[in-house]
Structure formats: C-alpha cells, structure tokens
C-alpha cells in the first residue's frame, strides 16, 4: 500500500518546466571541451605531417603556404603544394572517414569488432583491383579497358566498381533479410567469395604484376594528387554527413533493433542509409588509398573513451577528428625512415595502433559495441 500512496503525486501529469538536470549540462559542456581538444590535435598532427618527410620543412614555410604567402625557398613551396599537402589532406579525409564508418558499423551490428570493411566492401574493391592489375585473358582486359586501363586510374576505377558491386549485392539481399546478424554473415560470405577470386588470380599471376597488387593492399595516403582529392574528399564527406544525420537513430539502435523499431526508428531505412554511408566512405578510401586497416575498428573505441559517451551526436565528430589525427600520425611514422624509403601504412597503423588499443582495453574492464568501460 505504501507504493499506492507514494506514486500518484508523481504520476499526475505536470506542466512544470523541469530544468535540465545538472549532470546533462555538465556532460555536454565536457563533450564540447573534448571535441575542441580533438580539433586542436587534428590540426596539430596535420601541421606535423606537412613538415615531416624525406626532407624536413620548417613550420614557418608550411604556414606561409597555407596562408597563401610565397615561401622563402621556392622548392619548399613546390614540395608542399604538390606532395605534402595532398598527402596530409588524404590522410585526414581517409582517417576521418574510416573512423566514422567503423563507428556506424559497430553500432549497427552491436559488435565491438565491426569495421568499415565488415560487409565485404574492401574485398570487392580488392577483386576489382586484382582483375586489372594481375588478371589475364580477354575478359580481364575488357574490364581493365572499361575502368580506365591497368594504370593508376584503372586501379581506382576497378576498386570503385568492385566496392559498388558488393554494396549493391548487400543492399539487395538485405531487403529479404530480417535479422542484422544474417546480413553480417552475408557480408562476410561475399567477402570470402571475392577473396577467393583474388587468390585464384594471384595463383596464376606473373610475379611482377602480383607485386603491384600486394603493394596496393598495403595501403598508402601518398599516391593521391589534387584531382584525386576533388573526387575523394566530397564522397567521403558526404558519407560522414550522412552518418551524422543518422546520429539520433543510431543512439536508439544502441538498445537493439527491436526496441529501436518500437521507439519509432524506421530500422530498415536507417540500416540501408548506414550501409550506404559506410560503403561510400570505405569504397572511396579503398579505391584511392588501398584497404587501410585498423583505424576503422580502433578509433571509435578511443573516441568513446575520450568523450566518455555513447552519444553519436558527439561520437561522429569525435571519431572524424580523432581518426584524422591518428591517420596523420601513422603517415608521419611511415615517413620516418627518411631517405631510405617509406614504410607501408598498414604496417604503421597496426604496429603503433594495436598495442595502444590493447593497453587501453586492458586498463578498462570490458569491451562492448557501445563502448569500452
């Protein structure tokens, strides 16, 4: 009976304007401060990446180029505008995109190990690239000719076609699939079939051409020029913005698809849009940079820890900024051998990043799709 007496006063519909609890206000202020810090980090790492390389560039020269003033050393100006800055911009775009795509996939599949490639997009891109770089026979040459030859343009085109084909297949099959787990399995199976195609091509490939394919698979942000970026940046940005518009739905999806549906989320539509955003990002980045590993899975976890939140409205910008910063750092480390050459990007992302993530996870108690806590 105590319950009966205690509740009605609180139950009565109240028109009182209840102010925001202090905790909510404090949390959002804290998130804003951390996002500001991540922005500083992203800009700082970008400047660092512009200055570090086979030839060191003074920070003052970099700032002159960025502000449109002539450099003291003309050669530095050419180096910065033609080589360094495209590389820095590519790293920022790729890092930001892959981190956001990884976040979206981890939430969509409620799986802490999900990454942007989980639906087989990179495997499709890889098969496309394998066909143009190492394929032989009339069909392969016809495909290569259609996507722009077996040169750089052809590689980009083939990767885009492969990624797009996988996306179309996943979305098509997704129309009949109710459960997201089944969709995940379909993605993995498509990836396996594409991977088998690559293996088949590699088995009969001329070693020199196989080498070219292997190099593509190591990932790089160094091969892009400004015309590439004109294509890459808007596509990735569109994917990030699309993911951002899904933030509120993704928050509700943290409770699971059933709850989300009962709370007014059009789950299938959100699923389709999330997959599209991820495929735009992963497809474009893979086409220009190869399959850059690790960032997409690790950065979302680091961003959740940094922001102390599972709210996608702060996690999407947080992942974009942190992803850009981490990718810059990995690219800088890849340049460290200096005159002796460049490390493969996937080596640095894994060798630097994996221990960091493991250390962070070991200090925390639990790994989950929503967060590490």
């Amino acid at each position, binding site marked *: 009976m105590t*319950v*009966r007496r*205690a*509740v*009605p006063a*609180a*139950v*009565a*519909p*109240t*028109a*009182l*304007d*209840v*102010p*925001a*609890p202090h*905790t*909510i206000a404090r949390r959002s202020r804290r998130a804003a401060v951390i996002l500001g810090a991540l922005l500083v980090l992203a800009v700082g790492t970008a400047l660092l990446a512009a200055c570090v390389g086979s030839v060191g560039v003074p920070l003052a020269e970099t700032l002159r180029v960025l502000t449109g003033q002539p450099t003291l050393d003309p050669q530095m100006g050419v180096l910065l505008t033609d080589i360094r800055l495209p590389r820095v911009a590519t790293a920022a775009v790729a890092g930001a995109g892959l981190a956001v795509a990884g976040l979206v996939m981890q939430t969509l599949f*409620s799986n802490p190990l999900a990454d942007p490639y989980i639906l087989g997009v990179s495997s499709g891109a890889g098969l496309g690239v394998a066909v143009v770089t190492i394929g032989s026979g009339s069909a392969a040459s016809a495909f290569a000719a259609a996507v722009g030859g077996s040169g750089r343009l052809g590689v980009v085109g083939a990767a885009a076609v492969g990624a797009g084909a996988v996306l179309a297949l996943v979305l098509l099959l997704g129309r*009949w699939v109710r459960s997201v787990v089944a969709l995940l399995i379909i993605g993995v199976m498509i990836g396996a079939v594409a991977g088998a195609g690559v293996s088949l091509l590699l088995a009969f490939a001329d070693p020199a051409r196989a080498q070219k394919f292997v190099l593509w698979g190591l990932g790089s942000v160094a091969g892009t020029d400004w015309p590439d970026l004109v294509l890459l940046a808007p596509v990735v940005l569109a994917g990030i913005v699309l993911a951002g518009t899904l*933030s*509120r739905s993704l*928050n*509700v999806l*943290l*409770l*699971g698809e*059933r*709850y989300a*549906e*009962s*709370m*007014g*989320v*059009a*789950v299938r539509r959100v699923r389709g849009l999330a997959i599209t955003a991820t495929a735009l990002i992963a497809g474009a980045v893979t086409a220009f940079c190869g399959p850059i590993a690790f960032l997409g899975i690790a950065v979302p976890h680091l961003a*959740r820890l940094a922001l*102390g*939140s*599972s*709210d996608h*409205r702060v996690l999407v910008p947080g992942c974009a900024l942190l992803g850009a910063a981490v990718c810059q750092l990995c690219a800088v480390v890849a340049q460290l051998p200096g005159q002796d050459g460049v490390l493969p990007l996937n080596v640095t992302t894994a060798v630097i990043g994996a221990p960091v993530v493991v250390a962070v996870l070991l200090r925390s108690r*639990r790994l*989950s*799709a*929503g*967060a590490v*806590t």
Partner: protein
Amino acid sequence: MSAATRTAVGLRLHGLSVGYRGGLGHSHRNTRTIVADLSLTADPGAVTMLLGPNGSGKSTLLRTVACLQPALAGRVEVDGADLTRMSPRMRARSLAVVLTERFDPGLLTGGEVVALGRHPHLGASGSLSPADRAAVANALAVMHAEDLAPVRVAELSDGQRQRIMVARALAQQPRLLVLDEPTAFLDAPARIELLERLRVIAAARDIAVVLSTHDVETALRAGGVAWLICPGADRRTVISGRIEDLAADGAINVAFDSTAVTFHPDSGTFRLR
C-alpha cells in the same frame, strides 16, 4: 473507471490472427497460425495480464500486438486507430514496449536511456524541449528512478535496469504500454510492487497496460482482468475474464495443468498431484 470517455477506449483486437509466415516469398504453404481470429479488449486505466504456460504463444501474441511481428490477419486498434497501418514514428507515440531482450548499453546513463523515449516526439533539431524534459523527469519520478539517472546502465542491477526501461517507455507517453514478462527476473516483493505500480500508472494516465506472465500465483494475488491462452480442440484459444473467475471455473487448470502438477484455485498455488 474512465473507460467510458470518448477518446480513451484502450486496446481493441479485431479478428487478429497470430503466427509465422513461411520464409522467402511468404508462401502460404508454410504459414503456421498460432491463434486465429482474436477479438479482445484491454480497458484503459487498468492492467490486463496475458497468461499462458511457456511455449503457449504468449510472446508471439504480445509481439504481434506490439507490431514487432506482422499479424497474419486483423487489426490492432488503440483508442480507435489501427497500429498496424501507422508509420513507426506515429505508432511509437501510441505504443511503448518493454521487452525481455538484453542489450549492450555501452556508456549510456539511465537518464540518457529514458530520454531516448522522447525520440518519436522530437522535431528536426532533435533537442529536448522543456516539455520533453518534463516527460523524462516525470517518468523517472514515477518509477522512483531519479537516483539512477546519472548512473551508467551497465552498472545497474536487473531490477534497476527494469525500472529504467519502464521509465523510458513512459517517457514515450504512450496510450498503450506492452510489457513482455516484466516480472521474470524480479524477486517476489519486487514483482508485487511492479504490478501495483503499473496499476497506479495505468489509472493515473488512463492508458491501457498489457503484460504477459507465466506467473499465475503472483497474477492471482494482484487480481484484475486476464487473457488466458488455452489449448483448444483444433487450435489454441484466448479467453478473457477476471482472473479470480478464470481460476474458479477451472480455465487455469485447463491451460496450465500437467500430468504431474495441478492448480488449486482455493489456495491459488500449483501442487503436485
């Protein structure tokens, strides 16, 4: 009590058939009907309990009422509007559910989860208005969960988590609240307390509350109207009535008795034969 008011007429099932369609292509050959042609009413301002043994199709019926599973035929009406024809967003303003399934809450706090209940009401900006905040605060207060608001859901006990999930459903300000086995993980005092609290909420908000349970003993103690899933000659049927009457006239025996155990209406308990 206020079932006679014009707008609040509660939940009405019209010729509802529940079951599973076949796989790809929805061929009728594989359709499995569990209960057919149900016409039932759950009044606003009261709690209606859906009773049936495990495996009797309780959850399937409840999920269909909650539009989480398509009906084979018929309509699910709340205050005169057909839920099955609404967009998810409009439906979520009429209907809220509390499910048994667990999810990974990540870093979400209790307050954040309850605030997610405002999702179907939010405008394009997505920010909570004072009215939204009031609904959240009210829902937390009703469930005595204000102290859980700043705590991460991952750190809550089953019972506390349950209170947060019910508060989230109330923040949706639904006309119908559906709960699937809400008492399953609670101890005996907490079970009675939850049922009593739901009764108070139903009355105060004049909404229909439907919950499923296989716990006949607690349900009988709480009293009220029940829908009982009974095995029929051809197919299962659902009979509606006051739970005391269902116990007295032997309907609960028909639904629940096994070769080893029988229900004693006098004591309201199950005993070995």
